[in-house]
């Protein structure tokens, strides 16, 4: 046992040190506009960012793009600004992050970005829309398809096990209210009491509260549950799992720029952002992941199959409910607290 522990500890130690050293070297080698550093949460979405936007950006400007991992944008950005060394320029954020902490982010120069036509919500003073995702209903291949959140909670007509998200009320309050009969255009401001009352009354229909998108996908694909609320991208390209964008809670994910960044890096970031608005580049991105960008021209380039499964196609935009980030920014703290209580009593 001693040997095992020691070996493990040693291994951990060496990799930690190696990490520390390589990041020191990297930050030393870094100088203004010699490269663009983007902090993002990685996975397939990061891969799409690299292939679809970084590649044409580097080809045009000669500036290489480096991607670094990200756990929590606000936390890491704050820590970086406190340390006084700016070693990351662009951040993968939610709009609520930018709205709640505007001082951490630089104003974008939309003239410099010179965007191709994009949906209006993608053009924020301090953030640019990157891609849409949606909280949707999905079902195992053997289960009866559903089309509304009312069906999702209707265990009589649609028998089976359900799964929802454990760690957040975000989008799930909207889901509860839609299921309870609130019309989509009357959702905001959310009736929080009603949403929690509905969830409280229906929580026993939910067998598993998942901790990650991959767990959710695994549950519904394996048939461990029959119906799952899930991130659209986890199932949109799946052949074994059914899903619909109908009543999906649509969220646009954004990129934003570090406050106080040097002029050269900022100019580089704006050029990078331009590439994100080009329909052909966005088409490239959806080859990697089922999250599509805010270009208005993208739909025309899609095949019928793609229009069916991508969140920002004209047909799917029409049936989803866009989340209200402003409302969430103002109410988040109180709801988080309430969600913890709800979750502790599941």
């Amino acid at each position, binding site marked *: 046992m001693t040997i095992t522990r020691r070996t493990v500890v040693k291994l951990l130690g060496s990799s930690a040190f190696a990490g520390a050293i390589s990041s020191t070297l990297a930050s030393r080698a870094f100088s203004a506009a010699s490269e663009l550093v983007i902090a993002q949460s990685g996975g397939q979405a990061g891969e799409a960012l690299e292939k679809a936007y970084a590649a044409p950006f580097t080809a045009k400007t000669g500036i290489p793009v480096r991607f670094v991992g990200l756990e929590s944008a*606000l936390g890491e950005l704050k820590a970086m600004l406190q340390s006084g060394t700016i070693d990351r320029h662009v951040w993968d954020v939610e709009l609520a992050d930018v709205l709640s902490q505007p001082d951490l982010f630089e104003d974008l120069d939309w003239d410099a970005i010179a965007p191709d036509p994009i949906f209006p919500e993608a053009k924020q003073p301090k953030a640019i829309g990157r891609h849409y995702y949606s909280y949707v209903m999905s079902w195992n291949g053997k289960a009866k398809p559903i089309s509304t959140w009312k069906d999702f909670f209707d265990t009589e007509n649609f028998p089976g096990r359900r799964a929802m998200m454990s760690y957040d009320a975000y989008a799930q309050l909207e889901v509860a209210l839609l299921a309870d009969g609130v019309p989509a255009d009357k959702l905001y401001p959310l009736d929080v009491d009603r949403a929690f009352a509905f969830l409280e009354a229906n929580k026993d229909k939910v067998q598993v509260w998942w901790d990650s998108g991959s767990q959710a996908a695994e549950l519904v694909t394996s048939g461990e549950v029959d119906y799952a609320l899930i991130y659209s991208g986890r199932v949109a390209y799946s052949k074994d799992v059914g899903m619909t964008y109908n009543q999906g809670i649509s969220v646009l994910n954004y990129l934003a720029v570090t406050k106080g960044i040097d002029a050269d890096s900022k100019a580089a970031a704006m050029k990078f952002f331009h590439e994100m608005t080009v329909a052909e580049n966005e088409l490239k991105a959806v080859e990697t992941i089922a999250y599509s960008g805010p270009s208005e021209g993208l739909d025309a380039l899609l095949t019928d199959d793609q229009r069916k499964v991508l969140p920002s196609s004209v047909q799917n935009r029409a049936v989803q409910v866009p989340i209200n980030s402003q409302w969430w920014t103002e109410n988040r703290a109180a709801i988080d607290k309430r969600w913890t209580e709800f979750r502790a009593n599941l």
Partner: protein
Amino acid sequence: MKMLSSPAASRIALNAPLVLFLALTLVVPLLGIVVFSFGAEPHLFSNYVQVVSSRTYMRVIGMTLLLGVIVAATTTALAFLFSLWVLNLPKRWKPVVIACIVMPFFISYLVRALSWMPVLGFNGLVNRSLLAMGVIDAPLTLIYNPLAVVLGTANVLFPVAALPLLAAFHKVDKRLLEAAKSLGASRWTTFKRIFLPLVGRATLSTLIMVFAIATGFYITPSVLGGGKVLLAPNLIELLIHRRGEWGSGAALSVILLLIFLASIALAKRLGNPRQRRVAR
């Protein structure tokens, strides 16, 4: 060369890397957590007040301790019986049996938690067999409940409990047991009056060690609890990782840490079996 020849100096030199390593990777981050746990507004202890005054947080801590006690008791009891069995095995079989329980150490906690799903899940082996035999008409909820969390955690901690017990049991001087037997003691009397007092403290310290580890478990409750069993480590993850609420998350961590330290101090006080021989 001269330095190394002095045993004290070489001891320091040889331990320095480890001490430095522990300081950097354990002590410094831990101090960071302590610093984070003290709030600025409205007063220094506001995060602690928030944790202690919240019924939800206290319930979560209570549930964590309760499950910890149950896991510690069942795991230690099973490990005790197992160690007794191993003690009486023929010598050549012992390494085989011990290897069998040490082996799972090399498999990650996550994999070991996930591997319950194909067995006990709604679509798992047990449910499918019962359905096929017509014993039930709807799958039973065998996991995604507190019992599954206890089962999974106990399973993972079994070798952790068994190894120190095995060591303690094998240190018992067999001649004492034989002497008791030759003086006419029954097997039960020998066990109760000779063996149990000799291994009692080791058992108790194992119990407390398992408790301390069990209350810090994160992955197993997350996977086997189906999100319905919110324990303190998962709450800390929720607060710090998902929400960036470092203050309350750190305060909760410090409170848990104090509970661990108290239980480990207790374990230490109850002593290890090597030191107490002389006294009696």
